[in-house]
């Protein structure tokens, strides 16, 4: 049985933040609880006050704004994301990734904000967002700030979010017609062994790689962009990419600081990152036809 706590029902973000400030380390924000309740059950954290973000109206809305960004409210569940028309139309790869998060029950209850804030190193959406222009909006009772997704994750279970900041929204810019991508995840346990997200933008009538973004998740302490790998492929004529793909895949796998654990040995993970980077690239390129 969980240890006793109180549940607070703030009406707005400011109120939620103020409550957190008031109760300090005894309190935490609570949305889906799919990660929080687990660590509370394990006794790894103790909170006497849960501040329910789901009672704040409008925090789970999904919209497409006038500047062409998709906005996703922090308390939107994975299920809501995967079924939403705006996501399907503008960011279909996110629909597919959300479809495969955890299991159907977690998808019904778990929220995207909670997923990002918990910063469990094996998060699929976190890895995917890194290959988009994306940012996270953090709001406290005092201020609001936007943090680029690439700067949000600090390490395992650690982000730049301060305790009294609510992740109110994620903004991401959908890919244009000249960009396609792929997300590959692999694993046999509840949490994946690795995730590779890749986005390639073609220029020059689809003959050159104008831009490429590769992110690897689960293997390192946080999901990260494989910049060395990107440098190998960026600017290449598409016809040359296949020839340099092994080199890029190897670059993606190195510098990840893979650690042997239940998900696989370090060598295995490193090898699989190479395999899935190659597959993701080929998968993305095929979509141009």
């Amino acid at each position, binding site marked *: 049985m969980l240890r*006793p*706590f109180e549940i607070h029902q703030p009406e707005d973000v400011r109120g939620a933040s103020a409550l957190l400030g008031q109760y300090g380390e005894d309190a935490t924000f609570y949305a889906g609880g799919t990660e929080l*309740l687990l660590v509370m*059950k394990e006794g790894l954290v103790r909170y006497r006050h849960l501040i329910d973000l789901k009672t704040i109206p409008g925090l789970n809305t999904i919209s497409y704004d006038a500047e062409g960004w998709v906005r996703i409210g922090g308390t939107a569940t994975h299920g809501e994301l995967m079924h939403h028309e705006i996501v399907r139309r503008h960011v279909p790869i996110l629909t597919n990734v959300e479809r495969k998060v955890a*299991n*159907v029950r*977690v998808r019904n209850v778990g929220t995207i904000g909670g997923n990002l804030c918990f910063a469990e190193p094996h998060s699929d959406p976190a890895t995917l967002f890194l290959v988009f222009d994306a940012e996270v909006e953090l709001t406290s009772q005092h201020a609001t700030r936007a943090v680029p997704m690439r700067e949000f994750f600090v390490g395992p279970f650690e982000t730049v979010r301060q305790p009294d900041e609510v992740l109110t929204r994620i903004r991401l810019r959908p890919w244009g017609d000249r960009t396609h991508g792929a997300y590959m995840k692999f694993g046999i346990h509840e949490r994946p062994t690795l995730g590779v997200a890749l986005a390639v933008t073609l220029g020059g009538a689809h003959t050159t790689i104008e831009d490429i973004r590769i992110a690897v998740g689960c293997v390192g302490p946080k999901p990260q962009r494989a910049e060395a790998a990107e440098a190998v492929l960026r600017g290449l004529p598409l016809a040359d990419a296949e020839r340099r793909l092994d080199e890029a895949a190897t670059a993606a796998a190195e510098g990840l600081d893979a650690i042997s654990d239940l998900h696989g040995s370090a060598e295995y993970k490193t090898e699989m990152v190479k395999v899935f980077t190659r597959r993701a690239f080929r998968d993305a390129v095929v979509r141009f036809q």
Partner: protein
Amino acid sequence: MISQVPAAPRPTIELHLSVNGRPHDLTIEPRETLIEVLRNRLGLPGTKLSCDVQVCGTCTVLVDGLPVSSCTYLAYEARGRSVLTIEGLADGERLHPLQQAFVDHAALQCGYCTPGMILAAKALLDDIPHPTLDEIKHYMRGNICRCTGYKKILEAIAAVAEAPARER
């Protein structure tokens, strides 16, 4: 002599919810999970506890038609909602088609995962009445069975789906 300090009173909340069509008014502690309330307060032991970390699907119940892991879902979240447990499926002596199909297709052995399986399957068929085999597998992924090897479970669910399941 040991002097007793009275423990601080634990917070409680009022919970109103509907379970298997019946309304209930309860006073509970916020920390109680839905499975604890179902089994311990409402006397409904059909929902089983297994992994306790929302991975195995054994404790699946439907809240407003959506499957949740009742072991990791606060009863507080079911306030004002309707919950369906395995006890709510049969109509008197008449088994729900899914229950009957599980029996007919020998889709259970020890039966421990079965309530969760059947409820997850019900939610699937309510959402997608004519699922392909792949869709059934994807939806049911996350409900674990140690006994049957899953084949019979898939057959039972496919049999109930209005159109015969086929691989597209």
